[in-house]
């Protein structure tokens, strides 16, 4: 296998200006990834600051209703309200060990931007976050949170003015500032070594979940579900289960339905293509132009997906499916009402899939769903949609 590849997928499709930065990052990641000083600092950040380990919660009411044993991996309880901080603390610390003076990041819904702002504030690195103008409009509380923590939010007015364009702009910044800047990419996408590095930092989710379910049930789960946008929370929980016989299910944004063309389901409806430095499944037209996407969950509103997911799709190790906006909204309401947990709309996609597949499951079947984030950020949007429907 070529360097930085997952099967045929991945690679380093970037302009020459970034190649030096990528090899510097790769060397640093290899060096500090096994360095006791780095690892113990990261571990204490995760435990004392971020709140790890997060609980694995048994859902009594939902289990009764669905007829199986449902557990939630509670990344919503991580500081910042989503799994994103696992990665931002890891990369920000790495940047500090590398002697970088500045962090830049892209954000869609604002969760990764907030998590980068948190990591920058606590580790003393200035942060600038690129965010599409459309997203700034619809996710304004997160803009305020980032600014409160000292980050500068830079509006992106090019292209579709959403996440994809924020990544473009961050890559352009990085090409001009590689000497002192670390680009803190927020998912398992982008050129090597980002997909590998982000997976490494997010795998803590699956390692904990595996240990916790063995403690609680004395055996591995029958299925693990996670939503997939770029795919970092999914890779994070899947990876430690890949060698086991556990059924793994990635749930993409079906938007208004795959047939409508308004969705974000790169793996279910895309084809291999190159965006943001990697070969992976991509939503593109017949000329290879990248299509605009739609999802009620801003974090899934992205035309690409991590290259490792593309490999896992092609090998068949992971099943990839999609649920619609409507199904996700129903699951959002269901989990709130049944368990007193308001999920992020992204995570609600995984819950929605569980509801749909409940008929195939037996009473004693154990299912773990990665609850990648909490839903506070979505309240305004959900209220608006309910208002529109009523």
């Amino acid at each position, binding site marked *: 296998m070529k360097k930085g590849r997952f099967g045929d997928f991945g690679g380093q499709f970037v302009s020459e200006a970034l190649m030096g930065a990528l090899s510097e990052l790769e060397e640093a990641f290899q060096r500090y990834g096994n360095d006791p000083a780095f690892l113990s600092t990261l571990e204490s950040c995760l435990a004392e600051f971020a709140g790890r380990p997060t609980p694995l919660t048994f859902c009594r009411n939902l289990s009764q209703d669905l007829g199986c044993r449902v557990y939630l991996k509670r990344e919503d309880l991580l500081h910042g309200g989503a799994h994103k901080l696992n990665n931002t603390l890891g990369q920000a610390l790495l940047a500090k060990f590398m002697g970088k003076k500045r962090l830049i990041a892209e954000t869609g819904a604002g969760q990764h931007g907030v998590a980068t702002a948190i990591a920058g504030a606590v580790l003393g690195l200035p942060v600038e976050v690129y965010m599409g103008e459309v997203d700034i409009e619809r996710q304004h509380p997160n803009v305020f949170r980032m600014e409160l923590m000292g980050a500068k939010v830079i509006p992106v007015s090019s292209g579709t003015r959403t996440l994809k364009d924020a990544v*473009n702009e961050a890559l352009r910044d990085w090409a*001009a500032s590689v000497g002192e800047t670390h680009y803190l990419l927020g998912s398992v996408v982008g050129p090597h070594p980002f997909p590998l590095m982000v997976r490494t930092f997010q795998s803590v989710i699956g390692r904990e979940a595996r240990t916790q379910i063995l403690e609680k049930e004395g055996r591995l789960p029958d299925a693990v579900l996670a939503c997939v946008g770029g795919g970092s929370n999914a890779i994070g929980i899947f990876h430690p289960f890949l060698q086991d016989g556990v059924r793994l299910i990635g749930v993409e944004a079906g938007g208004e339905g795959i047939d409508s063309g308004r969705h974000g389901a790169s793996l279910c409806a895309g084809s291999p293509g190159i965006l943001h430095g990697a070969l992976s499944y991509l939503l593109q037209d017949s000329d290879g132009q990248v299509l605009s996407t739609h999802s009620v969950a801003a974090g899934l509103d992205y035309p690409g997906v991590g290259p490792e997911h593309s490999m896992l799709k092609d090998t068949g190790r992971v099943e990839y499916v999609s649920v619609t906006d409507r199904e996700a909204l129903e699951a959002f309401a269901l989990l709130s009402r049944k368990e007193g947990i308001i999920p992020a709309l992204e995570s609600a996609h995984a819950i929605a899939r569980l509801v749909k597949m409940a008929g195939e499951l037996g009473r004693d079947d154990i299912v773990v769903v990665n609850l990648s984030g909490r839903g506070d950020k979505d309240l305004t949007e959900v209220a608006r949609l309910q208002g529109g429907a009523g």
Partner: protein
Amino acid sequence: MTRIGEVFQTLDRPAFIAYLVAGDPDRVGFLTAARAVIEAGADILEIGMPFSDPVADGPTIQRAHTRALEGGMTVDGFFEAVGEVRKLSETPILLMVYCNTVHHRGVERFYREALAAGADGVLVVDMPPEEGERAVRAARENGLDQIFLVAPSTSDRRLGGIVESASGFLYLASLLGVTGAREQLSDEAGTLIRRVRPRTRLPLAVGFGISRPEHAAALRDAGADGVIVGSALVKLVEEHARDPVQMAREIKGFVAGMRGALEG
């Protein structure tokens, strides 16, 4: 030797390489701009295929890509535009594309179509040689030059690999970052030329940030074999999109000024 190689061999001054985006501001406007650039004496014409996500480009060229795509530019339309320029003159044509365009078309097919349209070389902006084995092979099989970028941050070790894969000339980025006209010429250009020169017999053309005759003159003095101008020209296309006569006049004046500076 390709037409691109001949340009560098026959000129006794640095070559002037002009970049335009196919379909910008529209099909006819692009042809007008291309004709003006050639008539004013550009030595090589670089034609960009618009892409939805031109990550290596600054705002001026991004807007050109958007204009062309909104005008309906396709890969078929791109090769037609290249063919129309080829009918105008024998000026060498270099295609500048993003990797997904080539990948999606099929690497071998893309290079065959490039040759058939009359192109002389291809530069895939986001494809370092490490990812370019198939493209380099397809370029050789079709007798096309494969151009690669060299940046100030390119290590000596990687430079060796680039020199091995490249043909035609090396495209030296005068600065780190994206394309776009700058007020001042980066002083890294001269340093880069001095570093690369002893390692290759390929001509060295410098691009990124070059917008004025004094930049061209400085690069000539620094020993560049070619000077590449994109954003400054694309800006003229943008400013005069609705007045083709004026656009052609402005472009000719600009190219003449740059050419004059190169002749010194």
